[in-house]
């Protein structure tokens, strides 16, 4: 979103420096290298790792919280990672308008941190689900989706046990009508290859088929599908690049405002 994320940020670098990224590494992260690889080798942008115990993060433009099983998923997926030192710095970074992308376990961590509303519960089928799904883009006015067309369908893989999104209880429990009360923004929904949203295309029982959610301001996004696993043609799919390209495009065009 042109307005709020950039206005809130004030973080626009000078036009000479490329957009830079940090990938957070927790004990048990396992998609950190994939994210690093895509940023460095596909996007060709500077990227560094930042460890969970760091009380500060480097001066970057976007922080990626990758997938995995941080702290063994003990207690609740993402619960312990959300209380680790680096998350305090990321909370400040996000409050200043910094871009934060949480993928899979990263989405769970952002919910546990309170940077995103709601919680991710066990899939209704009680199974770990690992397969390709389709996600319909519901909101192109975020820095993460601005390279997409409205209602565009992205094909991406999921791999999770806890992806069943539930909004905060006071914001309606399950009814589609309650979406108006939801304090976040629904950015992506599970759908059929043709873009139809229904229970049949909802792999995990997620409320309102939610696959990706952002905060009101649009600078923090959580998504269960893995864009970093589908950003190269040799991986039989490159739709994930829409997410990463959106970020770079937003930064280069609107981020300077």
């Amino acid at each position: 979103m042109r307005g709020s994320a950039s206005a809130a940020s004030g973080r626009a670098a000078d036009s000479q420096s490329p957009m830079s990224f940090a990938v957070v590494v927790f004990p048990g992260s396992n998609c950190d290298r994939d994210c690093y690889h895509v940023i460095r080798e596909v996007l060709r942008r500077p990227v560094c790792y930042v460890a969970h115990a760091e009380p500060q993060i480097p001066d970057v433009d976007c922080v990626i919280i990758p997938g995995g099983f941080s702290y063994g998923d003990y207690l609740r997926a993402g619960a312990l990672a959300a209380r680790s030192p680096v998350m305090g710095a990321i909370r400040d970074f996000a409050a200043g308008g910094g871009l934060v992308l949480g993928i899979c376990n990263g989405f769970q961590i952002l919910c546990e941190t309170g940077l995103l509303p709601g919680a991710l519960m066990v899939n209704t089928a009680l199974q770990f689900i690992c397969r390709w799904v389709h996600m319909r883009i519901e909101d192109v006015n975020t820095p993460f989706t601005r390279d997409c067309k409205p209602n565009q369908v992205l094909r991406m893989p999921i791999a999770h046990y806890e992806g069943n999104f539930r909004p905060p209880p006071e914001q309606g429990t399950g009814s589609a009508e309650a979406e108006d009360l939801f304090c976040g923004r629904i950015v992506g929904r599970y759908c059929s290859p043709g873009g139809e949203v229904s229970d049949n295309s909802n792999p995990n029982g997620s409320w309102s088929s939610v696959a990706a959610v952002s905060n009101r301001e649009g600078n923090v996004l959580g998504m269960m599908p893995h864009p970093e696993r589908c950003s190269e043609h040799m991986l039989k799919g490159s739709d994930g690049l829409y997410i990463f390209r959106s970020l770079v495009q937003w930064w280069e065009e609107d981020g300077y405002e």
Partner: protein
Amino acid sequence: MEVSVFIQLKDGVLDPEGETLRQSLRRLGFHEVDGVRVGKHLQISLAEDNTERARRRAEQMCEDLLANPVIEDYQVRMKEELS
């Protein structure tokens, strides 16, 4: 001092594990089982002699980490309350 913390999904939050157990129990002949809710039980040892202080600290632990207020409720029980 020993404190027990019980964490459970809020009423109204679908509990697929509990539902699966309900069906299995009924298949085993426990036809009277109407519902099962699965939760967690944590036993915490505290270096604290004052019951009320121990209870308040355990409640704070639930607020800060042990329970997720979006989906879970919690109860704190002192050991003597359980026997």
